[in-house]
């Protein structure tokens, strides 16, 4: 690839990116623009708070940082792993403009790559981890030369994201190759087996202690200690690595995006043996929705990652039962973000036809609820089962707390998702591995709100896990479930309104 040509491509890609961003912005209503400004302001405020507040924490909390210093390299490494997983599970990275809308425009792979990089932070897991990294660092070093301290950490966050994209595109390229699905599964299994071997041989801690990310910690310390010579050297190296990672990412992005989407094509051209005729209207509707979930590449892959990854983390970290209660909330939020927040996107352009069939709106609503609820329960159970390997034998209160947390957050997330699905529908065909059920900015807002809600519930059941009797978590769960049931019924009443239904159907089928 001639260098001059590459620079031209890069410049054009950046210009096209600005045009696509303007295109997306033009589709926003005044209310959405206001929400976007508020959301952006909130993120900036929280970022500043995450940097400044821990730095100024003083007595009586003290500044006992010994244990924290020991895990900081692992913490930095964890962010890199998160970035890689996010890019891999989203088929290289999110789409700035959905494939079916962008098909008429010559969007280059450079623009796709830069767009995916730009969208990567629109993810509550990314944001929370970034805030945690920044806050932990400034907590250790205090308020001395704060900007200098956080600069290497901010650069590491950017570098991790860019490296994540490089790996994400490369993995997507492999997956799109001949037998790519099996090769990708082989790589994932080998990676999982490697982590498991480290856990079982008790060598994981030793490996993590030798993480090269200790240099990020050192760079931050040089900033805090006004050692400008070494600090400048580290910052320069990080900047160079970021530039290199962004540019290198162009190669696997082009390679991956020019390959055929074999898994999607296989699913669309494959033979699906017809099941026996359904015994009831609800079964018939549920069956079609279930097929819509499991035959969608992004949904299948997302659910697999959701079911396995938190469980693997729990395995590695040997979480105790009172902490396992947090996991179902993470899984449920993630599961809803795959399709639940816009449940009628499963029907796509078939929504009009489905709504013309002679059945009660309640049945079609209930079918979506059942499918979303079962998906969240199954993935949550997989996570809990994996966590159980190292969590020891639970007490009755711990067991009931974990199961109650699972059911309560699933019900809570389903109720919230169905409300959003009815009030804010979007057209999304969910065919591409990079597709999302709503625009990226909206998804960021949804993920933040779901994360807050489900974490609170997880913490409540974390507290009930140490109770002396299982009746405590049981009694706490009952009103929460009743509240979710009430919210589901309220949304169902809204869905039963012909005007509301017509609007949802018209939007998702457009």
């Amino acid at each position, binding site marked *: 690839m001639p260098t001059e040509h590459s620079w031209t491509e890069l410049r054009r890609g950046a210009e096209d990116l600005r045009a696509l961003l303007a295109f997306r912005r033009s589709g926003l209503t005044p209310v959405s623009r206001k929400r976007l400004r508020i959301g952006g302001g909130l993120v900036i405020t929280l970022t500043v708070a995450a940097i400044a507040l821990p730095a100024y924490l003083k007595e009586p909390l003290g500044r006992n940082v010994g244990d924290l210093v020991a895990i900081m390299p692992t913490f930095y490494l964890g962010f890199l792993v998160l970035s890689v997983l996010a890019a891999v599970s989203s088929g290289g990275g999110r789409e700035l403009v959905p494939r079916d809308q962008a098909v008429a425009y010559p969007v280059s792979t450079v623009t796709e790559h830069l767009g995916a990089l730009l969208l990567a932070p629109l993810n509550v897991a990314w944001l929370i981890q970034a805030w945690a990294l920044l806050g932990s660092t400034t907590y250790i070093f205090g308020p001395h030369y704060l900007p200098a301290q956080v600069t290497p950490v901010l650069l590491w966050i950017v570098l991790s994201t860019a490296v994540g994209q490089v790996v994400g595109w490369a993995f997507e390229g492999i997956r799109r190759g001949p037998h790519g699905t099996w090769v990708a599964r082989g790589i994932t299994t080998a990676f999982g087996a490697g982590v498991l071997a480290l856990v079982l041989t008790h060598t994981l801690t030793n490996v993590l202690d030798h993480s090269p990310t200790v240099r990020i910690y050192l760079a931050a310390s040089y900033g805090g200690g006004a050692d400008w010579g070494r600090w400048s050297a580290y910052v320069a190296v990080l900047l160079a690595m970021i530039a290199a990672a962004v540019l290198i990412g162009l190669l696997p992005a082009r390679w991956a995006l020019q390959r055929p989407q074999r898994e999607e094509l296989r699913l669309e051209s494959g033979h699906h*043996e*017809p099941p026996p005729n359904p015994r009831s*209207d609800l079964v*018939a509707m549920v069956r079609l929705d279930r097929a*819509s979930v499991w035959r969608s590449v992004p949904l299948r892959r997302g659910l697999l990652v959701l079911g396995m990854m938190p469980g693997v983390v729990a395995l590695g970290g040997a979480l105790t039962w009172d902490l396992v209660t947090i996991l179902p909330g993470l899984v449920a939020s993630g599961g809803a973000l795959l399709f639940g927040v816009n449940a009628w996107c499963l029907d796509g*352009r*078939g929504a*009009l*036809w489905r709504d013309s069939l002679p059945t009660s709106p309640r049945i079609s609503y209930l079918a979506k609820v059942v499918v979303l609820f079962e998906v969240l329960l199954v993935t949550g159970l997989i996570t809990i089962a994996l966590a159980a390997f190292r969590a020891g034998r639970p007490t009755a209160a711990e067991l009931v707390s974990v199961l109650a947390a699972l059911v309560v957050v699933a019900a809570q997330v389903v109720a919230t998702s169905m409300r959003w699905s009815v009030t804010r529908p979007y057209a999304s065909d969910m065919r591409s591995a990079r597709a999302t059920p709503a625009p990226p900015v909206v998804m960021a807002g949804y993920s933040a709100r779901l994360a807050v809600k489900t974490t609170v519930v997880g913490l409540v059941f974390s507290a009930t896990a140490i109770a002396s009797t299982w009746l405590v978590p049981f009694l706490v769960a009952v009103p929460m479930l009743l509240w979710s049931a009430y919210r589901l019924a309220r949304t169902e009443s809204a869905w039963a309104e012909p005007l509301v239904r017509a609007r949802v159907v018209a939007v998702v089928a457009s």
Partner: protein
Amino acid sequence: MSSSGGNEIERIHIRGLWVRFGSVEAVRGIDISAYAGRATALLGRNGAGKSTTMRVLAGVIPPTEGEVVVDGVDVRHDPLTVKRSTGFCPDVGGLVPRATPWEHLQLAARLRRMQGWELRAQDLLERFDLGAAAHRVTGGFSHGMGRRLSVVLAAFHEPSVLLLDEPFDGVDPLGVEATQRVISDAKDRGAAVLVSTHLRDLAMEACEDALVLRGGSAVAALGSEDLVGEDGARAYRALLD
């Protein structure tokens, strides 16, 4: 069910239909009558209100104002019964992307309480050259295949009112023939057929009556003979401006 001046059974009766989406008036006070054993073409430019009218008749969009009676049932009061008596081929897509044609037919048969439907389903799929694709998900279909399957789904249960919105759009000549046959069969068994299309010649082959819409209002009701050939094209063109 009411009757027209003669012995014809009026299956579609629309009087003063208005449909508003916020400040947008998609349909502005149209009247339509369609009779058993006859096909009516809905013609007009983009945005004339054809698809919205079809969706109201299918029970998918509630009318804002006016009287809409399908096969003797008021669509506002009993949309479920209206959905039982109509077969609807929507203008866009109309297919669940990750379900197969057979799964679409299974769902329709279940919800319409059809027994022993499999032979008719197979026959329709074969007639529309979709037999080999019966167990492939529709997301991988070409536009024409999707249109043909939408017509199959609309006609599958032999409805008394057949609503076809752009059934010929992007469809090959064999598919057009099969669609014309479906329309002809529906008329033979006493159904009223409403065909919305931009393809005037094809519409005139299939329909006896035509209604031209413009800006959400009906501007002319004609016999098909008035819109055939060069003279018909000129007359139609004049009605669009």
